[in-house]
Structure formats: C-alpha cells, structure tokens
C-alpha cells in the first residue's frame, strides 16, 4: 500500500490476479503452476482468500505448497516443507505438466505481444542483445501445456509490443490455428492482468483486447502504455475496487505473517 493508505497500481494488479485464480479454482480448475515474483505473490494471496483455494505447484517439484512466507526462489525450502508432495524436476515437467494435469500456468515476462506470445530471453537481437534476460526456465512448456495461461505484467510501451524480440513462450503464435498446427495441447494466453486493467484474446483473431479497466484508469493511459494499436472490448468493464480485506491479506502475505 502507498503511504496514504490507498492501494498502489501493483496492489490492484496482484489483487485482480488473485481474484482470477480464485474464480478458476471455484469452477474446478485449481491446479496452478506458479513462477516466482508477481505470480507467486498473487497465487499465495489467492490461496489465503479463497475456498476452494488454488493448488500451488512450483517447477522445483513442489506440489501443493502452502508457504507461510513468500519464497525467494523456486528451490526455497519452505516450498518443500509445506508441500503435499515433492517430486523430481524431470517428473514435474513430464508426469504433471506435459501430461495435462495443470489447469493454470501463471507467468510473467519482459515482453508480451499482441498475440499473447512472451519474451523472457533477450531484448534486441539474439547474438548481440541489448539486454540479456535470464531465459526460458519452465515457461515454454507451461505456456504450451497448461489448460490456460494467466499473465501478470506491468503494462508499458516497452513491455507490450507488436512483436516480441524473441519468442520464448508461445501464446497464439502468428494467429488463429497456430497452436493446433504446432501441437500445443494447452489453451494459451487466456487472461493478462496488468496495473491498468485486464486483456483477453479476441475469440476470432486471438489479438489481446482490453476488456476491463481498473478504477480510475483511462483508455488514453492504456493506449499510451501499449506498443500496438490497442482495441477495447465493446462491453468494456471496470474491475471492482480492491477491498480492505484483500489489501490487508496482501500486506500479510508480503510481510510473511499469513499463517
């Protein structure tokens, strides 16, 4: 929270990401493969707020982790100590992810393009990069095999681009039908939650379209912070204000006092 007690744009983004996971868990799509950082914060907030809670799965092999403080890495001992099961890394990617047992893949990235593809490898050219990023990690196969992918990312012109400099993880590839042609079994980028609002793919063109704005956010702000000719849904909605309960729990999750 900001010093005036109002939620920051990041708080609003994380609360909305947690709500999305809560909604998916309510309809029986609860198993969630989580990356460290913003996705992990939101996933743990959802676990505290909702019943049924999402089942958190980390690529280090931890299934059903219930950390009492936010993990700093996927190998954090807390994730293993609080898990229902700990399996090996080859097993988590094969028996669990590749076999289709993951409902939701929860990802971030450095760039996201209008067709929901994600870059976490390089900014600039591959052989002479302007910025070398950490790389793929588990993301490509999460994006390929999870039932649906929820992306949580701050919306800026540098990050929301017409086309990624490097396609690390496939959303909808070059357009409709590409996932099927490529044999990708999961549903692709279904929801993008930003500090400005929510984007969802157009069912016909697969292009990410702004479907909701957070309270107080204008269309102009979204246009200014998007690197493609952003479209808005005809029935553009507004997300609910973050509640005191949500913000209080977020504070507790961040400070590691949520039990």
């Amino acid at each position, binding site marked *: 929270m900001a010093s005036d007690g109002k939620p920051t744009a990041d708080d609003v983004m994380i609360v909305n990401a947690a709500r999305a996971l809560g909604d998916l868990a309510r309809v029986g799509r609860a198993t969630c493969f989580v990356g460290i950082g913003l996705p992990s914060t939101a996933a743990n907030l959802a676990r505290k707020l909702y019943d049924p809670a999402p089942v958190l799965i980390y690529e280090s092999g931890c299934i059903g982790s219930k950390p009492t403080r936010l993990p700093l*890495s996927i190998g954090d001992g807390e994730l293993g100590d609080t898990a229902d099961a700990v399996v090996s890394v*080859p097993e988590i*990617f094969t028996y669990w992810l590749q076999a289709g047992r993951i409902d939701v893949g929860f990802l971030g990235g450095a760039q996201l393009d209008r067709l929901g593809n994600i870059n976490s490898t390089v900014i600039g050219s*591959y052989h002479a990069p302007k910025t070398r990023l950490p790389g*793929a*990690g588990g993301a490509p196969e999460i994006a390929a095999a999870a039932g649906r992918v929820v992306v949580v990312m701050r919306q800026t012109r540098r990050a929301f681009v017409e086309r990624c400099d*490097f396609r690390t993880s496939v959303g909808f*590839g070059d357009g409709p039908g590409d996932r099927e042609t490529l044999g990708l079994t999961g549903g692709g980028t279904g929801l993008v939650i930003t500090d400005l609002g929510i984007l969802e793919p157009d069912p016909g063109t697969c292009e990410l379209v702004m479907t909701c704005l957070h309270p107080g956010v204008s269309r102009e702000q979204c246009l200014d912070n998007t690197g493609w000719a952003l479209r808005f849904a005809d029935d553009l909605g507004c997300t609910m204000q973050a509640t005191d309960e949500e913000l209080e729990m977020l504070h507790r999750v961040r400070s590691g006092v949520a039990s």
Partner: protein
Amino acid sequence: MTPDVIFDQLIGAGRVSKLTFSWGGNPGVGSLHRFRDAVENAWPRAIEIEEHSHAGMAARYSAGASGLPFGTLRGYRGTDLLQFAENVRLIDCPFTGQKLAAVRAINPDVSIVHAQRADREGNVQIWGIIGIQKEAILSAKVAIATVEEIVDRLEPVPGAVVLPAWVMSAVACVPNGAHPSFAMGYSHRDNDFYRDWDRISSDRAAFEQWIERHVIGTPDHSAFLDSISMTASGGRSGI
C-alpha cells in the same frame, strides 16, 4: 539448468568458455551481472551459450542417465529457442505421427552435487527438493558428491534418494557445501548473500576485488565461509 551465483563467479573470473543452461538469473533478486557482461560485452571474454528450456534440459539429463542418445518431449515448437538451440530436432512419433522434440542426451564429464550425508562405504543420501541431482549423477562420467556429514549408518528419511557407493567416483565431507543455497535439515539459504551478490557483481572492479579476496585468497571452503562471515552487527564483513 540454472547457473546462479556460483557460475556467475566462474564466468566473471574468465573460467567459462561455454555455458549450456535454461535459466541464468539470480533467484529472487534479478540478473546475473557477470553472465550478462560476458554475453553483452564479451567481458572478461566472450562465452558461447547453448540455451534450452527446463523441460528440455530435464529430458537431456534423463536420457543421459538412461543410456539413450536422446530424450523426447512435447516442447520447443513455435518458440525461437528452436532456431538457436543446437541439439534439438523435431521428429515424428513412429506410432501416432505427432511431431515431438528430440533433445540430445547430456553426459557430463563431471557432475558435482551436494547431499546431506554419506556413510563410510560412500553411499550418498539426499532428501528435500532433490531437483535433478539423481540424473546429474547417473548421467556423468565422473560423479562427485560433497556432503554435510559422514555417518556410520544411513537412517531412512521419507522421500530420500540413495545413490549407491558404486555409482559415485568420490565423496567429500564439506559442511555448508551448498552455500549460499542450503541442505535441508543442515543449513539455511543465505538470502543476504544473493542480495549482496547483486551489488558486488554489478561492478567489474568490485567483483575482481571480491573474488581475489574471498575465493582465490582462501585455501578452502571453510576459510571462504569464514572470510564472508557475518559481523556481530548483522552485516557481512568484507563484502
């Protein structure tokens, strides 16, 4: 798979010519600055990189451990990784016709893992988040384990993996040998070290001073740990 701050030290010291990896960051903190400096600016030397996904690397180690020439997975398709990664090919499943990725087996010349304990025969016991350490050992030509302690008898632990002495080349007792990572039940992750590393490694001169003083200038791991030990005020001395 995940070269982190230890590999960053090797890269910054100019001891790495090629890195095969799937995620090169400082977990929970951000960039590996020495890795970035080598890739972006060829400092202190250019390094060759071969880059995969975690699932791809896991399949490569599993194939290596299984004595197979390649592993398969449903991966890489549609990504730019496929364009740059050597050792990945698309193949047709002989039974269903599905297009799958084939990845070449990895058989390291040497694998080194850190485990909780070994007995006097050299049987190694490891538990907690075991990651890919079993495959790293079983795929290697020379397999080395460092352990927290050597005991007379390995008591059973739920979920533990035991690597029999006859697959190991050598076992050495190195307490806190996973530092700055941890060995479940023996040591804690040194989170401050990962944070401090961001500052030390972001400056070439600071890095060179640090590695000279704490790594090159110390005779063994225990002396290294002493040289970076916490001061009474809670801050680290020397870094």
